């Protein structure tokens, strides 16, 4: 078994999601090679070489890979991936953008959102917004899949000593161009990796109130902040904070849902959290059915009281 893991990074640092993918690769078993495709990404390759369990790092350094354009990176992945039994990436927007394209170039089917490895060619993945779990068996020569990070504990970022090799670059496909990027800056922990997440829904009323009520709680707990789709659509907070089937999937130790009713699509993004707390004025809210503890009350008085007591 030889596994190629596509590193997720911003040309400066390796994203933690890659450590979860390496953990999934270890469950499959075999030699693990990490591919760093980027521009000026030597530091990322050096970091990847230190990751526990990695035996080799391939660095494809070229301007064409600077912004992870799928047209260019998928071409590279398909070219380099031919000699491997498995190609894995994180189930992030980058992984989901690139990997299906690479799979089609290799003429193989792909498995999205692997949550468990049963054998080197049998995997579990959620379907229907997490309301069913499918066990899927692949008979492809190369198994290509994205890994849901929250389902695998990350491997250690230090302790490995893999060799870094330069990989052949495949250049610019010439059909797409990066124009601009608007990255939301935040001092808080990253949503998908946070130990505690505080989320707000339509019930918080406004963007102003979202921050007034939830910021102190998140600050006190050192938590990341999330939101339901209703809160995002109403413009309370930016869309990258959305938790759910179409947003981010989180599984923190503690998830506090404030003013969130608990639609199927939202539950899909957080119901694997270890402990779920719901604060809602509606006694019948569906969120209560998955909550470990729920408190019925006005979030505008309950949350500040909670902040003062923890």
């Amino acid at each position, binding site marked *: 078994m030889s596994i190629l893991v596509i590193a997720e990074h911003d040309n400066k640092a390796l994203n933690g999601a890659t450590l979860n993918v390496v953990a999934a690769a270890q469950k499959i078993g075999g030699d693990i090679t990490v591919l760093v495709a980027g521009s000026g990404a030597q530091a990322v390759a050096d970091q990847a070489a230190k990751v526990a369990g990695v035996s080799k790092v391939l660095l494809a350094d070229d301007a064409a890979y600077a912004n992870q354009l799928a047209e260019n990176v998928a071409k590279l992945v398909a070219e380099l991936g031919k000699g491997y039994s498995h190609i894995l990436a994180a189930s992030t927007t980058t992984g989901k953008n690139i990997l299906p394209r690479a799979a089609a170039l290799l003429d193989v*089917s*792909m498995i999205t959102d692997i949550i468990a490895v049963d054998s080197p060619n049998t995997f579990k993945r959620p379907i229907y917004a997490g309301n*069913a779990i499918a066990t899927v068996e692949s*008979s492809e020569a190369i198994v290509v899949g994205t890994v849901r990070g929250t389902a695998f504990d990350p491997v250690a970022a230090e302790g490995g000593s893999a060799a870094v090799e330069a990989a052949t670059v495949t250049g610019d496909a010439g059909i797409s161009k990066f124009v*601009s990027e608007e990255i939301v800056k935040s001092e808080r922990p990253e949503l998908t990796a946070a130990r505690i997440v505080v989320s707000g829904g339509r019930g918080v009323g406004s963007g102003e109130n979202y921050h007034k009520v939830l910021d102190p709680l998140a600050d006190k707990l050192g938590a990341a902040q999330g939101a339901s789709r209703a809160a995002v659509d109403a413009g309370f907070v930016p869309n990258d904070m959305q938790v759910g089937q179409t947003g981010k999937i989180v599984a923190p130790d*503690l998830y506090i849902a404030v003013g969130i009713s608990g639609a199927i699509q939202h539950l899909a993004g957080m119901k694997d959290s*270890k402990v779920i*707390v719901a604060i809602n004025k509606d006694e019948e809210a569906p969120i209560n059915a998955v909550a470990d503890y729920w*408190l019925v009350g006005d979030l505008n008085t309950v949350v500040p009281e909670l902040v003062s007591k923890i």
Partner: protein
Amino acid sequence: MKALVAVKRVVDANVKVRVKPDNSGVDLTNVKMSINPFCEIAVEEAVRLKEKGTVSEIVVVSIGPKEAQEQIRSAMALGADRGILVETADEIGALEVAKILKGVVEQEQPQLILLGKQAIDDDSNQVGQMLGALLGAGQGTFASEVKVEGDKVQVTREIDGGLQTVELTLPAIITTDLRLNEPRYAALPNIMKARKKPLDTKSPGDYGVATGSKLKTVKVEAPAERKAGVQVKSVDELVDKLKNEAKVI
């Protein structure tokens, strides 16, 4: 220019599905079916581009059972001009769907190919990207804004950290995110008119594609149930539970 929109017939987004007792799949008998919400957004975007004068004709295609005609008719009621149903009763994988769509694209020669970013039944999020690879065309996935300018299209994409804008050479693939637009409702006169719009029926074989997939679903299970929680009466009780029972703070 011509736009091709792919739509999928799926279980309605508000239905809570049940796994069959024999673990062969989910039970879809007598369950409400609809256009996949992301596909509906793709149709709406094509109609808006037609209203702006960018797009001259909208062809909507669906691959699936005979009943998927209903979803094509719904798309026509929203403004699509004609439909193609690639009829198959068999299970079909994302790669095979992409291969059939490639055949349709080669026949129809659209400049814009719009799909939803994922179907809410299999949650794969693959077909648009695979089609991009097979056609050698650029892909603007998870689009929240689409601007056609000459022979290029600028697509603003929803990425994990925020937004990214890319420029693609036409013909290009666009997969829609929820925030791209808000689909309109079909008015009754338009539903009536849609019945008269042309709808061709094809088979996967017409495009030289065999159905099936090299991925086999061995088993479908219900997810592990969470143990029932408790209602706490006060903030003090909640803090106490979190500290001493759950030990998470």
